[in-house]
């Protein structure tokens, strides 16, 4: 049996949550041993940059993607194990087994495992030319493919398709977008906002087909196209699939870790297992502002959680408190999401602006309070809306102002 190595802080995941946690731990505990285990073979890099034109189209040196160089880990006495994943967890013995055969006994364990691109569940979807955009290696594949691609298809109505379509069009590649929903980003947006995005995509030369589900993938070793359930055939030598992320939780789950869509955690980012914590995209945590269990996939959230979770691992009992947000831009359209964007039961919506006017905001109201917003070309309202959410602003009596697209929301602060 392999020798057991004892580590004070074991971090599974080398992304922004895991790396920020390691950095914060080291600042507060100069001597405690820290190990980061990452299934990707690279030091911490900027996932945000992967789908940005500067990097994607090779306008800046490839090395710029890295936010920490290898010597950073040495300088901070952090042991980085790249290309290794966790294969087993025994939370009673406090032991994690790794894919390289090593066994680590931890004092505190952080599961910052992030998410991986949801795989397309269609026969033959492993053909060459069918790609995902999540990890650095996956992105490298797409970057290579666009050098020769003539016709591309993007699958899915979310941010991966939104950004990828623009990159493809910048390379003058014939681009078709297939979504299975009746309009773009239908799981988060209303139809009017979705159509605004479609307007921008179409203006940029993207052909959009909605309510289309792929039935068959065409080609031999290399993909040549696909056929949908409505019997339409599309040619393509590149297909980029952006249909969401999923968390690889299986090994932890079978060891009694409580999970739902992600790893369940309280406001201190503690899981149900002793001395096991979670942060970042994989955390489904208790949000103290919204008073709900939520899961978010964005950089600022993961970074801030990495910091908070480290402080809690150090025993500082600090609840995670942040109004989260996400922004993206492509084809000249600015999209921003603030707080909780899901119109669940008991949520009403106040509209600001319209598709015709070129800017459209939606304020989501629950129990007389703003809980979130979606903003098309109204990014400058992110800050005041975040503050209104944080301050528990009472909507009653202000409905007219909130529905007036020209009303300055800062006046309510």
């Amino acid at each position, binding site marked *: 049996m392999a020798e057991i190595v004892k580590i004070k802080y074991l971090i599974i995941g080398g992304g922004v949550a895991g790396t920020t946690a390691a950095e914060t731990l080291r600042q507060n505990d100069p001597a405690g041993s820290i190990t980061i285990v990452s299934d990707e073979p690279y030091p911490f890099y900027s996932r945000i940059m992967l789908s940005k034109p500067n990097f994607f189209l090779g306008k800046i040196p490839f090395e710029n993607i890295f936010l920490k160089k290898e010597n950073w880990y040495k300088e901070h006495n952090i042991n980085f194990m790249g290309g290794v994943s966790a294969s087993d967890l025994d939370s009673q013995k406090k032991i994690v087994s790794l894919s390289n055969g090593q066994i680590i006994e931890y004092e505190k364990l952080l599961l910052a495992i992030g998410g991986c691109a949801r795989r397309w569940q269609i026969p033959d979807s492993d053909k060459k030319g069918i790609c995902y955009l999540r990890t650095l290696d996956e992105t490298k594949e797409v970057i290579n493919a666009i050098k020769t691609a003539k016709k591309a298809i993007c699958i899915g109505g979310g941010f991966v398709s939104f950004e990828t379509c623009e990159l493809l069009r910048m390379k003058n590649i014939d681009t078709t977008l297939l979504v299975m929903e009746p309009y773009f980003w239908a799981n988060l947006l209303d139809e009017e906002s979705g159509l605004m995005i479609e307007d921008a995509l179409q203006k940029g030369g993207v052909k959009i087909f909605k309510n289309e589900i792929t039935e068959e993938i065409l080609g031999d070793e290399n993909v040549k196209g696909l056929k949908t359930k409505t019997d339409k055939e599309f040619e393509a030598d590149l297909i980029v699939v952006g249909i969401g992320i999923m968390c690889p939780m299986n090994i932890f789950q079978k060891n009694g870790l409580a999970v739902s869509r992600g790893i369940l955690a309280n406001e201190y980012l503690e899981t149900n297992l002793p001395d096991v914590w979670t942060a970042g995209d994989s955390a489904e945590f208790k949000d103290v502002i919204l008073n709900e269990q939520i899961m978010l996939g964005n*950089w600022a959230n993961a970074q801030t959680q990495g910091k908070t979770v480290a402080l809690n691992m150090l025993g500082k009992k600090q609840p995670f408190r942040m109004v989260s947000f996400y922004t993206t831009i492509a084809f000249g359209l600015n999209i921003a999401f603030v707080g909780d964007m899901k119109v669940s039961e008991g949520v009403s919506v106040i509209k600001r602006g319209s598709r015709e006017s070129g800017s459209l905001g939606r304020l989501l109201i629950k129990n007389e309070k703003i809980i979130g917003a979606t903003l098309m070309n109204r990014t*400058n309202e992110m800050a005041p809306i975040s503050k209104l959410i944080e301050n528990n602003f009472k909507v009653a009596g202000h409905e007219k102002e909130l529905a007036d697209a020209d009303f300055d929301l800062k006046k309510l602060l």
Partner: protein
Amino acid sequence: MAKQIKKVLVDRDLCIGAASCIAVMPEVFELDGENKAVLIQKGGIKNSGPATIDAFDVSSVNQETLRMAAESCPTKAIFLYDEDGGQIYPD
């Protein structure tokens, strides 16, 4: 000893408003109406710089925290310079 940061600049073309810098150093960075990072300076001045650290609206600037704020930027939009104008970060 690490070089002392004297001047800071946010490249507004690179900045995407991910707010990493604000998470690290909210007393120095904030987002403006265009969702770009600006430096909070004395006299109510807020712009993306370049600005010298003495102009920041804080009693003292922690060099290490400022470097961390720049290093945390996912698009490497924050540039740090020393006294002689030499670029310290991105390195």
